[in-house]
């Protein structure tokens, strides 16, 4: 009988030790989360000649400062003097990334934001840009890597001394 009590006490102690001190209850509420994943492309200007700001984003700026045929080339540019014009040359690095898209490559075009100053020609990859139509730079762009495009600004000796400000608008389209 004495042994029996010891066993019962041990059992009770065991119960007290292993009974949880808290009780869980799965609540009646749930939260449904819905949404629609959309395909997207992002285009980033990774590099450009000149004194740049905003590289690594889709809206970079390049300042060339005062430029002249017989002056120094702006940062990141070379200057070549011709018989009747002079050319500033550099490169622009463009990276296009895709998300939630099955496309394997992309087409990249460029277009000037406004008409170039008289006597000034803007070129990318050897092609002259205009503000009226887009110029195709590549139709087989590789996602996720920076592609470098040659960038030339040709200034005629006859061009008036004035600002040459402009914008190059890039458009990437998935193929």
């Amino acid at each position, binding site marked *: *009988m004495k*042994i*029996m009590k010891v*066993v*019962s006490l*041990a*059992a*009770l102690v*065991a*119960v007290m030790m*292993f*009974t*949880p*001190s*808290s*009780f*869980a*209850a*799965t*609540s*009646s*509420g*749930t*939260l*449904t*989360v*819905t*949404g*629609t*994943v*959309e*395909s*997207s*492309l*992002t285009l980033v200007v990774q590099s450009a000649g000149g004194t740049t700001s905003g590289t690594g984003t889709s809206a970079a700026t390049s300042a060339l400062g005062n430029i002249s045929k017989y002056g120094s080339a702006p940062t990141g540019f070379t200057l070549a003097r011709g018989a009747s014009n002079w050319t500033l040359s550099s490169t622009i690095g463009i990276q296009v*990334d*895709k*998300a*939630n*898209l*099955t496309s394997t490559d992309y087409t990249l075009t460029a277009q000037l934001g406004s008409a170039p100053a008289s006597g000034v020609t803007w070129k990318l990859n050897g092609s002259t840009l205009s503000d009226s139509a887009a110029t195709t730079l590549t139709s087989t762009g590789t996602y996720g890597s920076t592609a470098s495009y040659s960038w030339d600004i040709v200034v005629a000796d006859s061009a008036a001394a004035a600002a040459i400000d402009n914008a190059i608008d890039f458009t990437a389209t998935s193929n």
Partner: protein
Amino acid sequence: MSKTITTSGSAVLFAALLWMLPQAALAQGRTPQGVDEFTVTVLSADNRPVLQGASEVDLGGLSNASSEAQRHDKSFSITRHLRLRVTRSNGAAGVVTLSAFLVRGCHPCKLRLDGSELKASPTLILQRVQLNGTTDHRLEIEIPASMPAGAVDAEIGWQVEEK
């Protein structure tokens, strides 16, 4: 001798029954008293219930190119803020812990609540929640860039544990 063994067996059986009692209550989603059942409600910004006990958060269009997207190496995430209220059916006050789990996931996307990734098993969200009060939370969805475009439809369940 045989009586001692029999009594010992009864004690073990008694202990087993005591042990099973709270487990049975757990399975029913109730405390042992059988009267306390909790509801977790998602509130709007002004603390009004969006929909008692069965709320829905529509994240809308989820795009890597959107201004609210946080871009990572091979994924992006969108974050929304939620306010929750935990109540007991009888309205009594108390302190509970709140855990969340995925009733229905959205693989390969991930859902996080206050930074903790939600899975099929409960993840502790808050150690101490005052019943009838409100708590603020961040719901984050991370979407791999490789995930095909289309609908996301996940469901989060709650587990409330009273001390």
